[in-house]
């Protein structure tokens, strides 16, 4: 039997190699876009796999080539580990001639890659990470942040809902991401004269929320705000339904929720949920057509960060064409100069701190009987203009360009 152990080790080794493969040597005569994202981990559905589709769609829509060179897409799995992402980003920029890196779900990864890109004067367009410091202390002359920050998402929801509901209970996942969502919402609530009746912090990946929900219920608050993400949000919603949170007169808001998650829950658990998104596929006919096209290719609806990836790649290629070169400084200057306009983002612009400015949408999940098709899952509560949603440029952002 001991003979079998080496065989198993070899088999396991092969598996690991198969997962790590997938990057190709670059040719000097093409424009190369690197997509660094979670392709296999807990956020792969909401980000990585669909971003590969979205980025390729943008390249195809642009015509597949720019400045007479073909546009190539490389995709790599960062496994949610900043050190893996850093190594890959260095290889891409230094060896493989990658011109721009996008994706980067997970703020720790985004910050790591941002540092490397800034050091080399290379372009990074983040369509994933949501840390506020990406347009604050960690802003970069060659860096752009396409996704909305935690502050913009949570703050917008809090601002809109607190107009009517003044007493809140925060259910927060106990790590920096959750706490920054909570802080952003609490700051807005205080300025609007609303009160926080209680805060419960739960560990990441909690299976049972019942005791926290019990606390929320007995706090007497009118709004339960979920400052968590992914599966934690879904489980909390499911169990909130079970414990009759809505029946006891509370409404629920998701401070970080994606429209594509609605179908992962049964109707009773999710209907009426209020949250903010940067992408609303029913905004106009073009956005709807794009979402349908994405769905045909991917077999699932696009999340907001996948939509952002499409926009970021398309806008980058437009800027390369306008600049007539892939030189980072010139391309970035063009990216800031030409307005953003595509089916996903609608109309927008890029501010001097690298913040992409676009309208944000406060949405409410529809009850299932009111849905007419796969794309009809939410109603729009309010469109919040870009300036209001993103606020002024951070005083911590110092660009030496």
């Amino acid at each position: 039997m001991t003979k079998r152990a080496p065989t198993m080790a070899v088999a396991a080794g092969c598996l690991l190699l198969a997962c790590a493969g997938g990057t190709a040597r670059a040719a000097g005569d093409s424009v190369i876009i690197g997509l660094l994202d979670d392709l296999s981990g807990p956020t792969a559905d909401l980000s990585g796999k669909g971003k590969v589709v979205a980025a390729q769609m943008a390249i195809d829509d642009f015509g597949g080539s720019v400045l007479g060179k073909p546009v190539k897409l490389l995709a790599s799995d960062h496994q949610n580990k900043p050190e893996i992402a850093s190594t890959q980003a260095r290889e891409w920029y230094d060896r493989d001639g990658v011109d721009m890196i996008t994706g980067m779900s997970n703020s720790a990864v985004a910050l790591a890659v941002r540092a490397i890109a800034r050091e080399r004067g290379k372009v990074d367009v983040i369509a994933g990470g949501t840390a506020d410091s990406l347009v604050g202390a960690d802003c970069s002359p060659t860096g752009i942040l396409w996704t909305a920050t935690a502050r913009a998402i949570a703050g917008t929801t809090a601002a809109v809902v607190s107009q009517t509901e003044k007493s809140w209970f925060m259910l927060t996942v106990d790590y920096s991401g959750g706490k920054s969502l909570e802080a952003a919402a609490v700051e807005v609530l205080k300025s609007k004269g609303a009160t926080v009746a209680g805060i419960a912090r739960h560990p990441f990946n909690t299976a049972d929320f019942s005791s926290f929900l019990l606390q929320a219920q007995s706090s007497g608050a009118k709004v339960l705000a979920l400052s968590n993400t992914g599966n934690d949000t879904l489980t909390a919603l499911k169990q909130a339904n079970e414990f009759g949170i809505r029946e006891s007169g509370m409404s629920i808001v998701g401070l970080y929720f994606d429209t594509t998650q609605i179908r992962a829950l049964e109707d009773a658990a999710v209907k009426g949920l209020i949250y903010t998104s940067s992408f609303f596929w029913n905004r106009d006919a073009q956005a709807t057509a794009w979402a349908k096209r994405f769905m045909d290719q991917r077999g699932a609806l696009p999340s907001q960060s996948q939509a952002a990836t499409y926009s970021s790649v398309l806008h980058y290629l437009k800027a390369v064409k306008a600049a007539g070169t892939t030189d980072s400084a010139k391309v970035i200057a063009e990216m800031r100069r030409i307005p953003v306009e595509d089916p996903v983002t609608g109309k927008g612009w890029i501010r001097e701190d690298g913040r992409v400015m676009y309208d944000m949408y406060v949405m409410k999940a529809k009850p299932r009987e009111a849905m007419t098709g796969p794309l009809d899952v939410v109603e729009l509560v309010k469109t919040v203009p870009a300036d209001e949603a993103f606020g002024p440029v951070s005083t911590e952002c110092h660009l030496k360009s």
Partner: protein
Amino acid sequence: MVQLLGIPPQALFGQLLLGLINGSFYALLSLGLAVIFGMLNVVNMAHGALYMVGAFLAWLLMTHAGIGYWPALVLAPLMVGAIGLLLERTMLRRLYKVDHLYGLLLTFGLALIFEGIFRHQYGVSGQPYPIPDLLKGGSNLGFMFLPTYRGWVVAFSLLVCFGTWYAIERTRLGAYLRAATENPTLVQAFGINVPVMVSLTYGFGVALAGLAGVLAAPIYQVNPLMGSNLIIVVFAVVVIGGMGSILGAIVTGLGLGLLEGLTKVFYPEAANIVVFVIMAVVLMIKPAGLFGRER
């Protein structure tokens, strides 16, 4: 308001009841592990994955065949049991004669494969599974709101746990089974087909995991990783109760659930580690576990 050690009784009773609910999941899962370890000497690392498979089967039956919760409660465990039989017959059986570690490695590998397949096929976001109509809603107990479904989980899993305990410790079939683990050759000499009995035991053990999966589907998100989140705690429960002790698994499962609930009242930050602290203490004082016997 009357207070108990500075804690309002509402919070205390509420958390204790929630602890009991979690405890009944621990009991059901650790029971399957204990049966498999006690009878087969296999440390079944695939238990969590099969619990996940049970939940997924319930979801698949519902979405693709329109079969609801109640039939799934019977069908899904049977199917998981059949998977278990297949695994035992084709793979696990070859490892009985060697060290426990090989069984552990094999089942761990199987767990990764199961999770990988479901993750690849259905992604990581999870699938919705509604509470059956009959068990919707809840009742206000004065100190807390008890969802009917959770009450059902406690009652049903207690029934299954004690049924299993009775079958193994108090019936003739159980006696054969226990005898077969003590001395398989001798029992076979009496004309009892020991290999078949062992296969069926493994099938039954994992069917319990599948059953827990179906019970969990309406409460937790049906997700490829739901098993690996739970399996470590369940192993701790089995170790504390005594590897292979049926009664130990049941009593410890419920007890630790309650204890976790209590910890949430007095010192919430420790709720996640209290089980492991107890495991460490028990291992130091009574290495065979609370109900285990030294071998």
